[in-house]
């Protein structure tokens, strides 16, 4: 998790996000991964995809799940996640769970 956080922060810095946004990315990574790891069955693979394009950092955290009903995220974790990052989307289908979000560069930053 520490590696995912640090990599995400480094990519956010490269995308010219502000220091506060970089911290937000780090925290969102923490919240998101904590949840996915919790609901993922033992021995399953959790993947974490980060993408930087046009000043937007987007993250996709995913894992396989064995049951179609997955525990809801902790309401505080969800509150924090939705307050920190944009377009938070959680999907459970076809035996997989996927959590996506993104953070866009501040409009006033000269790219």
């Amino acid at each position, binding site marked *: 998790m520490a590696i995912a956080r*640090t990599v995400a922060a*480094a990519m956010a*810095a490269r995308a*010219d*996000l*502000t*220091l*506060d*946004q*970089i*911290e*937000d990315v780090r*925290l969102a990574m*923490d*919240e998101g991964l904590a949840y996915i790891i919790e609901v993922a069955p033992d021995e399953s693979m959790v993947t974490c995809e980060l993408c930087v394009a046009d000043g937007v950092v987007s993250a996709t955290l995913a894992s396989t799940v064995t049951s179609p009903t997955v525990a*809801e995220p*902790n309401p*505080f*974790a*969800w*509150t*924090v996640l*939705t*307050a*920190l990052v944009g377009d938070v989307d*959680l999907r459970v289908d076809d035996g997989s769970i996927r959590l996506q979000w993104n953070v866009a560069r*501040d409009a*006033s*930053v000269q790219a």
Partner: protein
Amino acid sequence: MSQTRQSADDQRLAAERELFERLHDADASDAERSAVRDELIETHMPLVHHLARRYADRGEPIEDVTQVATIGLIQAIDKFDPELGSAFSTYAVPTILGAIRRHFRDATWSVKVPRRVQELRGKIDAAHDALAQELGRSPTVTEIAARADVDPADVLDSLELSRARSTAPIDATSDSEVPLADTLGDLDASLTNIENAETIKRLLATLSEQEPTVVTLRFFDGRTQTQIAERVGVSQMQVSRILTRSLEKLRAGLAAG
């Protein structure tokens, strides 16, 4: 998002909205407003704890982090304007995080870092603060690097370093290792004894007549005053006087170094 979570959220938001309306109700008495404010603070304390825990492993006591986070929450409650239409949590989370991050920025560094890193951090902090003032928002790494005239990679390094502020206790053990404290040398207490012995030897030499003999018999051989009196051939009273006088001289000599 699932149906149940959606409706639970709606209910929570409606309740929250009502509380804020009562908080800003011009007709309400101060006591009523104060009660509503307390209720808002209490209902959001779990959020404060949740956020504070995220910063639990960064070397500051969790109680301190919770305290600044709570102050952040209270500020958010006092400043939040429900008329603007957004949910309170959207406003509260950044405000609470801001309070926590300020606390970490202002907290002293307990890790001793090389001078170069310290100076770099000073430059970067200064550039950060100036830019934040000018821009009215947090600056980017590129902006800080340009202002401080340093490499962007150095800014990133410095940011990472400033997170690593915690110190491990010297007697902490991991399974296979000897505690660090046990591997460190210490000043040998007997070194001080040698110093004292040398000093006393020198001072004893400054004493006159029977004084060195009396002191030696009393304190190094452990004889009683009566035994010394017999041995030296004086009265016990005189031994007592010689001892008092000698000790005064020795003390004066020690104090003079």
